């Protein structure tokens, strides 16, 4: 009749209803004149029907309730909420731990940290009688010393005037601190007793207010003003420095 001969795939597609109208008609015509192919198509149909019939009521068991979409949706929501809750509690725990740990570290460092310990050290090093002469700036003129301080510090507070208590400035010395230059000014009275006035930039870790600290026979009184920390270190085992100490801290007890 004609040269058209459908492939095996064409026959399958024909049985599966996957062909367009034109192709289907062609195969209809072909099958009418080719009994072998028609038998094959019939066989394919039978196979399909057998499979469909045997799978029709599969699975036989009723649908278990866990497969209900509403229930699954709800469980997904609960699960994601639980995950969020776990994540949130993790974050909370972590931040609490971090914060707490940091506070603890801060606390323990504060306990061992001595404010203005460098001022006390400076006194020990340079205020002894034999070292008193080894200063960078040797002058008894307060104005010169103030000018020298102003060179090294921006808007440094005016030097205290202890002349009323018999202590006069005799020299200044630059020191090194962890945050840059520090300076000490040495005061002496006629008896050779020494007081150190100390200026330095604030450190990084701790900011402390005013206070004092007894360290051996030395009293370190310190405060903060403007950009710098200041301290006056004086011996506490002599009556001559008492008025100075009281002048710095008016509320200081009398003894």
């Amino acid at each position, binding site marked *: 009749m004609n040269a058209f001969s459908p492939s*095996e795939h064409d026959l399958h*597609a024909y049985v*599966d209803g996957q062909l367009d109208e034109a192709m289907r008609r062609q195969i209809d015509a072909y099958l009418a004149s080719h009994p072998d192919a028609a038998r094959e198509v019939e066989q394919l149909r039978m*196979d399909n029907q057998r499979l469909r019939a045997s799978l029709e009521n*599969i699975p*036989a068991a009723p649908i278990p309730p*866990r*497969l209900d*979409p509403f229930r699954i949706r709800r469980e*997904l929501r609960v699960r994601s909420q639980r995950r969020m809750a776990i994540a949130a509690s993790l974050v909370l725990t972590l931040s609490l731990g971090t914060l707490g740990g940091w506070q603890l570290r801060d606390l323990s460092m504060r306990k061992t940290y001595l404010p203005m310990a460098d001022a006390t050290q400076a006194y020990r090093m340079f205020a002894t009688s034999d070292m008193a002469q080894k200063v960078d700036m040797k002058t008894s003129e307060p104005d010169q010393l103030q000018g020298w301080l102003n060179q090294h510090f921006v808007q440094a507070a005016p030097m205290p005037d202890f002349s009323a208590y018999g202590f006069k400035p005799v020299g200044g010395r630059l020191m090194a601190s962890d945050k840059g230059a520090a300076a000490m000014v040495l005061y002496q009275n006629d008896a050779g007793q020494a007081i150190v006035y100390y200026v330095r930039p604030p450190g990084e870790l701790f900011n402390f207010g005013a206070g004092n600290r007894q360290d051996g026979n030395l009293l370190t009184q310190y405060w903060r003003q403007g950009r710098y920390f200041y301290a006056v270190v004086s011996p506490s085992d002599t009556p001559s420095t008492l008025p100075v100490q009281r002048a710095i801290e008016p509320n200081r007890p009398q003894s």
Partner: protein
Amino acid sequence: MSQDFSDDDLRELLPRLRRFALSLTRHENSADDLVQSCLERALSRADRRHDGGDLRAWMFQIMYRQFLDGQRRAKRYAGLLSLFGRTEEDLAPSAEDVAMSRSALQDFSKLPAEQRALLLLVSVEGLSYQEVADTMDIPIGTVMSRLSRARKALRALNDGLPANPSLRILK
């Protein structure tokens, strides 16, 4: 929610999903597990379904991918076990726990998983070749050649059987 299908749409599909799952796993319990994880995946990814195509084909695709993933995992696990000197567990169903115990189905369940999926999607679900190709992630030409191979294999298994005279003739 941006999804364009409802719980009822899914409920309506459930029997088909369970059948596809059972034809893949051949065990009723693991089939329902597969259906459940497929539903979970579909519901949590509903917003990624933007083509608006046939919901059934989309669900079949999710399920088939999950089935293949599960098989790969099982194979890896079996490989791991064999490292410890265990013998590989026989994953083929034993006579007792084959859910498809009817004779016609016994032959079907002897086919490889891919052929079972092909036959079910084409002959039973009536998906188009293109949808099957998308579902199983293979080219459409491959669908056709593997389909005819699967039918031959099934017929060879069936040949021992007498044709069932009480078979209803469906259109």
